[in-house]
C-alpha cells in the first residue's frame, strides 16, 4: 500500500474521486431518427427493436461520468426475441381466446364480461412486472468502465407491490400516491447495483404531502378555470356571448356555417389542450418535489445525490417534447429521449468521493432476452 509509483496505483486500488456526470450531445441523431422512421415504415414496424437499440447506443454514449462514457450493449435481436416470446405466450392465446369467446357469446354475455375483467386485471398486474424487467434489462446492458449495472430483486413481488399501489391509489382517491411512489422507488433503488456496489434509499414520504395536498385541492379549481377560459375563447371565436353558448352547440342554430363549425372544433380542441396543460403544469409542482426528494434519499455508499428539479423546468421539458412530437409527427422521438435524459443528467449532482478502482463486476447472470412485456404494453419512450 505504501508503493508510491503511480504506475502501480491502479493495480493496488486508487484514491477516492469525485464523480461528475455530463451529457454531451453528438451529431448523427437526426439522421438516425430519419433512418429509423424509414426502415420502420418499410418493415411494417418490426424494425422498432433495432431502432430503439440504435437510439440507446447513441444516447448512452453521450452520457459520461468523469470523462468515460456509458456503453449500451443491448441488441435489437434480444428485444425482438423478447417480443416474440411474449407474443407467443400472451398475445396469441389472448387473441384466440377472445376470438373464440366472441364466436360463442354476444358482447354483453356475462362470460365475455368476466373474461374481459380477468384480462384487464391480468394486464394491470403484469404492468409492474413489465416496468421492472425492462429496467433490469437496460441496467444489465449498461456498462461504465466495463462494469455492468443490475436489478437483483424479483419482478413478481415488484409487480404485486405496483398493483397494490394502483389499487390503493384508487381507493384513497390518490392520497396514498406519495407514500406508495416512495415505496416503489425504494424497491427499485435498493434492488439496483453497479458492479458489486448496491444503491440504498432511505427516507419518509411526509415532506411530499404538503405539495400533494396543494395540487390535489387546486386540481378542480385549475380545471374549472381552464374550462371557463376555453369556453370564453370558443365564445369569442364564434362571436356570441357566453350565455348564448347553449344555442351555438345545440341543434337549434340550424344555419350554422362551416366556418363556424371549423372554429368550434378548433377552439374545442384548443380548450381540451388548455385543460391538459393546466393540469400538467399544476402537477409538475409535485413531480419536481418528488424528483428532488427521492434523489436526496438515494445513496451509493458513500455517495449522495441531489437533483435540481423545478416545476418551471419540467413544464419546459414537457412542452418542448410535445412540440417536437407534433412538429415531427413522431419521427423526432429520439430527440425527446435525448432532451429527457439530458434534463436528468444536467440536474443531477453526485456528492462525496468513491474509490472507483475498487468496484468489482457482479457475477449475476444476464437475461438473454429483451424487454418483451414492455413492448406489448408500449409504455416506454426510451
Amino acid at each position, binding site marked *: 500500500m505504501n508503493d508510491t509509483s503511480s*504506475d*502501480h496505483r*491502479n*493495480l493496488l*486500488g*486508487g484514491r477516492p474521486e469525485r464523480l461528475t456526470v455530463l451529457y454531451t450531445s*453528438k451529431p*448523427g441523431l437526426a439522421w438516425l431518427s430519419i433512418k429509423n422512421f424509414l*426502415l420502420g415504415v*418499410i*418493415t*411494417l*414496424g*418490426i*424494425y*422498432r427493436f433495432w431502432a430503439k437499440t440504435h437510439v440507446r*447506443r*447513441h444516447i448512452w*454514449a453521450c452520457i459520461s461520468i468523469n470523462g*468515460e*462514457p456509458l*456503453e449500451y450493449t443491448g441488441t435489437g435481436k434480444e428485444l425482438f426475441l423478447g*417480443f416474440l416470446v411474449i*407474443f407467443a405466450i*400472451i*398475445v*396469441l392465446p*389472448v*387473441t*384466440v*381466446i*377472445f*376470438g*373464440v*369467446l*366472441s*364466436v*360463442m*357469446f*354476444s*358482447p354483453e354475455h356475462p362470460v365475455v364480461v368476466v373474461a*374481459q375483467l380477468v*384480462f384487464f386485471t391480468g*394486464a394491470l398486474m403484469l404492468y409492474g412486472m413489465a416496468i421492472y424487467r425492462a429496467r433490469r434489462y437496460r441496467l444489465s446492458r449498461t456498462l*461504465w*468502465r*466495463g*462494469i455492468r449495472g443490475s436489478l437483483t430483486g424479483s419482478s413478481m413481488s415488484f409487480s404485486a407491490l405496483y398493483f397494490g399501489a394502483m389499487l390503493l391509489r384508487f381507493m384513497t382517491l390518490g392520497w396514498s400516491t406519495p407514500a406508495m411512489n416512495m415505496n416503489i422507488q425504494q424497491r427499485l433503488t435498493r434492488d439496483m447495483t453497479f*458492479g458489486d456496489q448496491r444503491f440504498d434509499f432511505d427516507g419518509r414520504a411526509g415532506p411530499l404531502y404538503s405539495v400533494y395536498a396543494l395540487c390535489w385541492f387546486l386540481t378542480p379549481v385549475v380545471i374549472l378555470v381552464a374550462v371557463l377560459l376555453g369556453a370564453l375563447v370558443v365564445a369569442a371565436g364564434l362571436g356570441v356571448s357566453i350565455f348564448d353558448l347553449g344555442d351555438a352547440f345545440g341543434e337549434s342554430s340550424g344555419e350554422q356555417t362551416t366556418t363556424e363549425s371549423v372554429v368550434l372544433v378548433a377552439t374545442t380542441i384548443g380548450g381540451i389542450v388548455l385543460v391538459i396543460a393546466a393540469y400538467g403544469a399544476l402537477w409538475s409542482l409535485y413531480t419536481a418535489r418528488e424528483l428532488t426528494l427521492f434523489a436526496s434519499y438515494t445513496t451509493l455508499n458513500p455517495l449522495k445525490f441531489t437533483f435540481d428539479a423545478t416545476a418551471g423546468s419540467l413544464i419546459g421539458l414537457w412542452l418542448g417534447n410535445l412540440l417536437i412530437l407534433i412538429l415531427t409527427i413522431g419521427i423526432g422521438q429520439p430527440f425527446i429521449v435525448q432532451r429527457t435524459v439530458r434534463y436528468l443528467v444536467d440536474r443531477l449532482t453526485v456528492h462525496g468521493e468513491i474509490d*472507483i*478502482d*475498487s*468496484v*468489482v*463486476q457482479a457475477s449475476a447472470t444476464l437475461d438473454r432476452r429483451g424487454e418483451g412485456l414492455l*413492448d*406489448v404494453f*408500449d409504455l416506454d419512450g426510451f
Partner: protein
Amino acid sequence: MAANTTNTEFSAEFFDGQTAASRAVIFKIAPDHFQVFEQTADLVIKGSYSGLELASPRQAGQPLRVKHSSLPAARILIHNSVAIADLLTLAPQLDGKVRPKRVLKTIGVIAAGFACLALFGYLLLTVAPGLVARQIPETWRDRLGEHVETSVIKSNKACSNAAGRTALNQLVRAVTGDQFDDLKLRVKVVDLPMVNAFAVPGGRIVMTGKLISKASGPDEVAGVFAHELGHVVLHHPEAAFVRIMGLQLILSLASGGTGPELIGNVASLMAVLSYSREAETQADLFAVKQLRRQGIGTKGFRAFFARIMKKDRSLLGGSLGGMGDILSTHPGTEERIEAIDPSKDGKTRSILTTKQWRDLKNICK
C-alpha cells in the same frame, strides 16, 4: 502513417471487465496481430485485427474504444492519434463508417425476414383457414352463425308466412335432394330492402325478401340457394372467420398491441360474408353440379346472376354496403357468368307449382 513498421508500441488504457479500475497498458502493433501488455510486461491480450470491434461510436476528441472477441468484457482505449491511424489501416472496420457489405447484409436479413413473414402470413390467411374451419366444433360453429346472423339481420323480421315457408322448404328439398342432412341447414328469408343472400357459419342461409320478389321464377331462387349451399358445404364462412383472426394476429405482430378488440365487432363479422373470387367460383361450380344432379335447369341461375350483376347494380348495397354474397362485385363477374352453360343441362324438371311459386313470392306478406 507507417503501418509497415514491424513493431510499434503505444501507451493505452485498459478495463478488464472484472473491476472498474483503469489500467495503463502498452498496446503493441504487429503486422498480423496486436498485443496488450501490463506495465509489468505481463501479456493481457494477443489477438487478430479482424476480431476487433468498436465498443462505442467514434467521436472526435475521444479515445478509440475497442473490444476484442477473445475477451468480450474487456475494453481497450487508445488515446494516441498515431496509434489510432495505424490501427485503422490494419482493422478498417473500426472507422465506424457504414460498409456497403454490412448494408447489403442488413437488407438481406430484412428481405429474408420479410419472406418468412410473408410465408407465415400466406399460410395463416390461405391454407390455415380451410384446415381449421373443418376442425371447429359444431356447437361453436352454431354459436358463431347465430351471432353473425343476428348482426346481419338486426331487427328486420324473418318472413314466416306459412304457405311461403312450405314452398321454401319444397324448393330447398328440390335442390338438396336427400343429401346434406348432416349439415342441419336452416334457410331463412328476411325482409331486407336489397337483393342479397348470405351463407353464415353453422349451415345457416339467409335470402332477402327483395331477392325473392325480384326473381322471375323458382329456378332463379334455386340457383342462388345452390350457390350459398356451396359455400356452406365448402366451409367458406368458417374459413373466412379464421382468416380474420389470422389477419388480426398479423396486425398485432406488427403493432405490438394485444387487441382482442377488433374481433367480434360487426364490421369484421361482415367481412366473413364476402369471399375470394376462388371461393365464389367453387360455389358456382358446386351450384351448377348440384342443380344438374337434381334435374334443375341452370338457365335461371345464369339469367338472374347476369341481370343482377349487369343491370341492377342499384339494387345492391343498402344497409350492408354491398358486402353481401352473390352480389359482391368481384372482378371476373363476366367469366363467372360465362362459366354457367345451360346448354349442358340434362333433362330438367319444374320444382314448384305456379301456386307454390306465388306462395314463395308472398312469404314476407
